[in-house]
């Protein structure tokens, strides 16, 4: 099976067969996503189709600082918002909306949810690639929230050794976070994380 990166590269050079393979690979996933946020059956089909058309038209602009699937989801979700917005414009007067609704910045949109998920995923992937000892201690301490008394029973290390492992892992995570292009974490994600 050809790797995704290779297919993207070929598609960016105008190879429609390569893009077709990407479509086959992600159609169902994107469809599932739209199912979650779209009620009407015909809308789902239209959105998935339109998302892939837009993806093909803009594939050259795709940058590899996010996954291709994430990029596709963003396109699909933008289309869903657009559709909802148009429907609202047709049926609801702006004056009939409660003022709080218009001001409410705390509402987390599906796109924001997806962005949070992406951030967690990136962080999780990074932790998974840490050396074994560091990964175990870091996960137990940070994700499972275990105290050192229990961690050292699991790993058989001394407390000092476990703390050193944690510190090494944490320094690497710190470097990873600094190297992440924070500017592409939009305000929404920062707000959503804060309010989550």
């Amino acid at each position, binding site marked *: 099976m050809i790797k995704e990166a290779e297919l993207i590269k070929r598609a960016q050079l105008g190879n429609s067969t390569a893009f077709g393979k990407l479509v086959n690979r992600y159609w169902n996933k994107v469809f599932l996503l739209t199912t979650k946020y779209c009620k009407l059956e015909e809308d789902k089909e239209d959105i998935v189709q339109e998302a892939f058309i837009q993806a093909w038209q803009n594939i050259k602009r795709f940058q590899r600082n996010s996954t291709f699937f994430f990029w596709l989801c963003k396109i699909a979700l933008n289309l869903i918002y657009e559709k909802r917005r148009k429907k609202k414009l047709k049926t609801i007067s702006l004056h009939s909306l409660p003022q709080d609704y218009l001001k409410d910045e705390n509402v987390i949109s599906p796109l924001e949810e997806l962005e*949070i998920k992406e*951030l*967690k995923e990136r*962080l999780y992937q990074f932790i998974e690639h840490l050396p074994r000892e560091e990964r175990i201690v870091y996960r137990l*301490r*940070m*994700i499972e*929230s275990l*105290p*050192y008394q229990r961690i050292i029973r699991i790993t058989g290390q001394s407390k*000092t050794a476990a*703390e*050193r492992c*944690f*510190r090494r892992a*944490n*320094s690497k*995570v*710190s470097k990873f*976070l*600094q*190297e992440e292009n*924070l*500017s592409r*974490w939009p*305000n929404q994600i*920062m*707000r959503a*994380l*804060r*309010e*989550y």
Partner: protein
Amino acid sequence: MAKSNNESIERILTKFLDEFHQGKNPKIRDYLRLYPGKEKKLIRELTAAKITYLTFHPERDKKEDEESLANLLKRLKDLKEKNEKK
């Protein structure tokens, strides 16, 4: 929280995370005050720990008022920019 200037970063990180595990909401600036002379290292380490912890346990951030995760991310970005200038 006992104060000791000779405390290792490892031990400080332990205390910091213990506070989270106890349901408290530790503030980085409190730790900077407690351990003068280690500010630069502490900011990096504690910020990373806090961001990661809150990312995996977002419910902990509900009580955050003064030091939101957004501020932490901004601080990290500033640090990155400072490092790039050097």
